[in-house]
């Protein structure tokens, strides 16, 4: 038995060490690394990875890759005499899990040739050396690409860091308030709703509560929803108070504006219980909120245009929580500032925008060919084929001019929301600050006093960026 014990200790030690062994010395440049064929004249394999999967998350995008990009690109290359095989590695998970996966891929020197990522991750990935400027990877052909002329500077910035382009953005998005017109009618609220202050949102919430709606208001909070909490909850509220998460080279600390936002959360979730506080802590709370909105259990939901085109989209196999009568039942309206005129730049209405994009993997064995594929995926023809699945606001002005008018919601975002929107700072520290903000909302929603949450947040953000870079006034 004694020998067994020794073996057990050894085994346990090994188990405890697995985590430690996960770290290694960063990217390897060995071109024979990873799968696929090793250059030369033989057949070449390129891989694409995105957080999209047929029948699940971003299904239309996955279908477009499988059914249009891959066959069309392979055919076009074959016509040029190059034999290329393109493989798609789909993912269908929460954004945070996807980020973990691709950072581990890149850290270990592997990963797909073309990787989809949220624009806000570019800074920390670039600083880690996991990704490099497009020109450094794809060669001179990158700067010569004619597509850049069609993509506005603001949109290009979404995938840029320190003034250099790291990837091709996939377009702009914007946040609005969605509301269920049937529930509004039952509560005696106008079908054409446009609140002009937070108080009017709360009033609508109270009316919905009185008419028996289970969840009158749903404003994302908590860490389980990850960046969705920051982007579809805290930041749109914060810009409504006139403050920004990063302004004048300083990060927001425990300021009055942030206190106002947290107090709004407290009113909604604790004092008046207009929202479902438990939902904010559930592991799959965001997906559940989608399903509940689709089922007519949520009155008002703050979400991006993603929600309209990829979640409640009634088209076959596109939405994850499709609503057959979306166009009749679901209304959308701009997010008001706290009071008229109190938003950033004195605005009455506010929004936040971000954007995803696709980067080239510096570990790619065939970087120039990978660039050709990436450019191909961003050609006007490619966006037109993509629009056959679901329409979204593309990065290209030429394509938008032609396609957007067919969808009133996206036209609304493009015309009414994008001009008043704000962006997150493209700094490497942002994701950490974002988590601290999520924790503050989680504490408030769980019932902690606003003052405690605010103090904890101020300490956390000082720990991340240093006391001198925090604005606590």
């Amino acid at each position, binding site marked *: *038995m*004694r020998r*067994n*014990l*020794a073996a*057990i*200790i*050894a085994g*346990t*030690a*090994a*188990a*405890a*060490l*697995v*985590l*430690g*062994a*996960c*770290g290694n010395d*960063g990217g390897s440049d060995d071109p024979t690394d990873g799968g696929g064929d090793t250059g030369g004249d033989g057949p070449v394999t390129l891989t694409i990875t995105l957080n999209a999967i047929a029948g699940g998350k971003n299904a239309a995008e996955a279908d477009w890759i499988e059914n249009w990009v891959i066959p069309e690109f392979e055919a076009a290359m074959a016509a040029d005499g190059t034999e290329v095989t393109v493989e798609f590695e789909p993912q269908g998970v929460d954004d*945070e899990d996807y980020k*973990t996966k691709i*950072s*581990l891929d890149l*850290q270990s020197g592997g990963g797909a040739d073309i990787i989809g990522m949220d624009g806000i*991750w570019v800074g*920390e*990935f670039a*600083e*880690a*050396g*996991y990704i490099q400027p497009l020109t450094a990877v794809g060669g001179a052909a990158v700067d010569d690409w004619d597509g850049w002329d069609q993509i506005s500077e603001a949109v290009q910035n979404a995938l840029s860091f320190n003034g250099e382009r790291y990837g091709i953005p996939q377009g702009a998005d914007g946040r609005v308030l969605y509301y269920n017109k049937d529930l509004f009618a039952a509560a005696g609220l106008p079908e054409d709703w446009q609140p002009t202050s937070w108080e009017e949102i709360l009033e609508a919430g109270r009316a919905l509560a009185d008419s028996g709606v289970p969840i009158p208001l749903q404003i994302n909070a*908590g*860490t*389980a929803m990850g960046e969705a909490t920051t982007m579809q909850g805290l930041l749109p509220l914060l810009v409504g108070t006139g403050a920004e998460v990063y302004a004048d080279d300083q990060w927001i600390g425990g300021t009055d504006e942030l206190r106002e936002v947290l107090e709004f959360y407290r009113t909604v979730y604790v004092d008046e219980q207009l929202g479902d506080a*438990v939902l904010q*802590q*559930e*592991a799959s709370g965001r997906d*559940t909120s989608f399903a509940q909105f689709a089922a007519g259990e949520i009155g008002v939901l703050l979400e991006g245009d993603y929600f309209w085109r990829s979640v409640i989209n009634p088209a076959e196999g596109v939405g994850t929580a499709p609503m057959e009568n979306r166009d009749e039942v679901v209304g959308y309206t701009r997010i008001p500032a706290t009071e008229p005129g109190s938003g950033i730049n004195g605005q009455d209405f506010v929004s936040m925008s971000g954007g995803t994009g696709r980067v080239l993997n510096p570990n790619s064995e065939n970087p120039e060919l990978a660039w050709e594929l990436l450019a191909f995926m961003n050609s006007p023809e490619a966006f037109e084929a993509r629009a056959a699945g679901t329409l979204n606001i593309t990065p290209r002005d030429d394509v938008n001019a032609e396609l957007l008018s067919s969808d009133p919601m996206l036209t609304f975002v493009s015309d009414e929301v994008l001009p008043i929107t704000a962006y997150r700072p493209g700094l*490497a520290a942002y*994701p*950490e600050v974002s988590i601290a903000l999520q924790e503050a909302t*989680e*504490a408030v929603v*769980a019932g902690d006093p606003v003052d405690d949450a605010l103090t904890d947040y101020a300490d956390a953000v000082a720990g991340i960026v240093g006391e001198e870079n925090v604005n606590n006034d």
Partner: protein
Amino acid sequence: MSATGTAAGPGLRRQPGRRRRADDVAGLGRVRAGLFVAPALALIGLFLVFPAVWTIYLGMTDYRLTGLAAANPEFVGLDNFATALGDDEFWHSLWLTLIFVLVSGVIGQTLLGFSVAWALRRVRGWVKSVIETLVLAAWVVPASVASFLWLALLDRRTGTLNALLGTEGTAWLIEYPMVAIIVFNVWVGTAFSMLLFSSALAAVPPSQLESARMVGAGSWQQLRDVVLPNIRGHILTNTLLITLWTFNTFTPYLLTAGGPRDESAILAVYIYTTAIPGGQLGMGAAISLIMLLINLVIALGYLRVARAASGGRR
């Protein structure tokens, strides 16, 4: 280790035997014997010693998953260890782990496993097979599948448990996260204790039980005076294994992900959320090392107890 082992029972071993063991039994000589052992040593070095040293090194850097510190990690000495040991979250996590190990492992699995084995000791035929199969199934089902079943059971809206109890809308994993993962772990791990105790009970000499009954010992007295002394070694082994497994288990992450607000973040989960989603690989390695040391202490403690127990029996 063998020296102290034989020292525990000096009177029982023949002196020549003891001398022979220390000598070159196989006649290989030091060099050739070393050659035979070398592959094993190399494997241990590669997969055990190297990662251990590497963990120590990583734990002394500010290495991160992304950002500047990923490209150029800096040596920070014992900062990570000091931060971890001065961090309320670490102690909170350690405390949760202690409760988790004691309640779900040492008490839950051992008692339930023994009870099932004791209850089934005279049952034969298909009843025994069915019960054993059911208990074993919980152990054999892959953790990912088992956790999915439990998510379905405990779901707030469509969960089986809420339907059975009529408690619609209770979010068990949010409101009672520790209770949920403890019950889950008992469910998963009882099979091992049951199997081990079943075989241990079968090895209790029937003659001793018979004699006990002859002098009028009741069930409880038989259990206390005959059965338990006979299976003491098994109990010890079982408790050690369960303690270490439970201490290191990561499966509860699949149920609660450590949440809400770290209320179920046992140590293994805490390390993961710190190192991978949190990106602080250096800090994660430092806490891993602390966890490894705790493991060693537990194992050595049991070794001492085991030695004292086997010495005492002689």
